[in-house]
């Protein structure tokens, strides 16, 4: 048994954690607070903890500036990316988990290098190519691009989950007369849901959080929420516009907060997954 820690140490521990939680959450909490205030209260000297609440910035951003439109774009792009990423990622990851040859190893190494690619490198080639091909500013283009960028990470993560499923399971199915594809669909996928959900969450985060590619490949009516925040950047001198930007940023956070609330366990599992499997 470990000895009970000294009260002094416990107090220091608690104080440190309180400080950390404050540092982690304060920027978001303050942003949420400002988004509900009139400009005069938001930048009062000294800063106010309590002030009258107004929803006018949210109204401005969502209705007048048309953020609802960008929210729909974000939903289409994100869900499309997650769906396709998981479908083709599961197939590839299952193949990689069950195949013994060294081809699989090389594919994983290539994926690791691809994962490290700065996205602007790819963008440099996309820009002239998509422009020539007339693929600019289309949902399909951005979805397919995000799927591809996501693949290296997705197959690494899903492979980790497939490796943990005993090979006897699909071998039994093969003996019973299933083809590989049938064994995969009927026997393996039903026990793979935890892995699929975790990988899906990370695909979701990548697509939803992406700024660089989304802001470059889409414009006007097709912009995603995250990319649309650029409209409000560099408006520090205009308190009204700045507060609209803050309301927009808070809006972008809300789905993510729910995501963490509901899927905390899976997110943690996903982050740890890579560490365990290397």
């Amino acid at each position: 048994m470990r000895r009970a820690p000294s009260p002094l140490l416990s107090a220091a521990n608690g104080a440190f954690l309180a400080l950390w939680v404050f540092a982690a959450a304060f920027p978001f909490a303050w942003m949420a607070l400002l988004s509900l205030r009139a400009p005069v209260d938001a930048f009062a000297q000294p800063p106010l903890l309590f002030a009258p609440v107004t929803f006018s910035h949210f109204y401005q951003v969502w209705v007048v500036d048309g953020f609802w439109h960008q929210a729909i774009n974000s939903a289409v792009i994100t869900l499309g990316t997650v769906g396709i990423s998981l479908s083709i990622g599961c197939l590839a990851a299952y193949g990689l988990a069950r195949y013994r040859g060294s081809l699989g190893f090389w594919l994983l190494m290539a994926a690791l290098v691809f994962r490290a690619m700065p996205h602007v490198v790819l963008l440099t080639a996309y820009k002239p190519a998509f422009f020539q091909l007339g693929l600019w500013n289309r949902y399909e283009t951005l979805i397919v691009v995000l799927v591809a960028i996501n693949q290296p990470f997705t197959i690494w993560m899903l492979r980790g989950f497939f490796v943990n499923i005993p090979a006897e399971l699909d071998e039994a199915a093969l003996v019973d007369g299933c083809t590989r594809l049938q064994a995969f669909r009927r026997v393996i996928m039903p026990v793979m849901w935890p892995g699929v959900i975790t990988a899906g969450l990370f695909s979701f985060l990548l697509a939803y959080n992406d700024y660089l590619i989304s802001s470059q490949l889409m414009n006007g009516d097709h912009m995603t929420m995250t990319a649309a925040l650029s409209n409000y950047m560099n408006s520090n001198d205009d308190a009204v516009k700045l507060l609209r930007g803050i309301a927009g940023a808070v809006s972008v956070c809300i789905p993510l907060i729910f995501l963490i609330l509901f899927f905390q366990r899976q997110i943690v599992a996903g982050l740890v997954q890579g560490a365990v499997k290397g």
Partner: protein
Amino acid sequence: MNTRSFAGFVAPSVVAMVLLILAPLIGTAWLSIHEGYVKTELAEVRTVVPLFGGLTRVEVQKVPQAVRDADGRPVRIWNYVGLDNYGNVLRIDRLAAGLSAAAAGGVDWITQLYRDITTIEFWSALEFSLLYIAATTPCVLLLGFTVALAVDRTAKRIRGALIFASLLPFIITPVVGALSIYWLFLDGAVVNAALQALGFSKFYFLSTATSIRSLIILYGVWHVTPFAFVVLYAGLQTLPQDALEAAEVDGATAWQRLRFVTVPHLAPLFAFVTLIHVMDAYRVFEPVLVFGSNLYANSLQYMTYRILNLEDNYSKAAAASLLTVAGILVLLVPMLRRTWREHRAA
């Protein structure tokens, strides 16, 4: 599984990666050694200029105009230019001039050399990218480990809430996270107001290079610490309890148990976090964009983004991109080599 069905399973994923990652890389490499321009020709433009009394005069001017193809798109000509684009990015000439000035000596030759080199966009971007990696990595590991230890010591029922709050900076959109920090440090915003309320003088965080760079690094630590925390915290749950107890029986202090049992047990996880973080920190983009002024802080990815967007120069952007990729490969080599050795051994 035989090779044939393996190929079938991985095909869709491989096709996606080849078409949208590998092919663009090759395309970028091609762009980086070519220079494009829109082909123009002199076209005669006739304008009818009114004189007086209803009289007119026809003026003929020769104006350069883009040559268009059958679809009406301007025709672009690509010329092979060798390594010119790389030269434009690296500015070896200015580097050499700076070095020879330094070799000639002088009172302050180090400062002068540093200034000469960092006024070149590429080298200053490289400098800050490396500084960002070097400054954030140890802080992330240390802070993440401390948080993991602290959470591991608290009561089980509040750990869920602690993990929730800790995940926020990591999960929430990087642009939004960077903006949320940025907005705290605006001239009239809460940090300055609090400083003034406490009797300090106002500090303009966003107008000096040092403070902007420090804020970007602060953001980086804040953003990635949760990742280190979660991974190390999971590692703490798998600590060998018998080894810890044996150490305690042998009279090891808490510090010694930490130093000689816990840390060695977590060593692979520290390595993993470092690897992932270095890979991601090297391509830092969002905070530089948000705190953005390439005069104060620049990163390789942000520099390329600017060349692509503001200079609209694909070839130069491609050269900058490939130089960035070269850096990635250098960073990845030790890691790939280790995996290769393990693969050989297996």
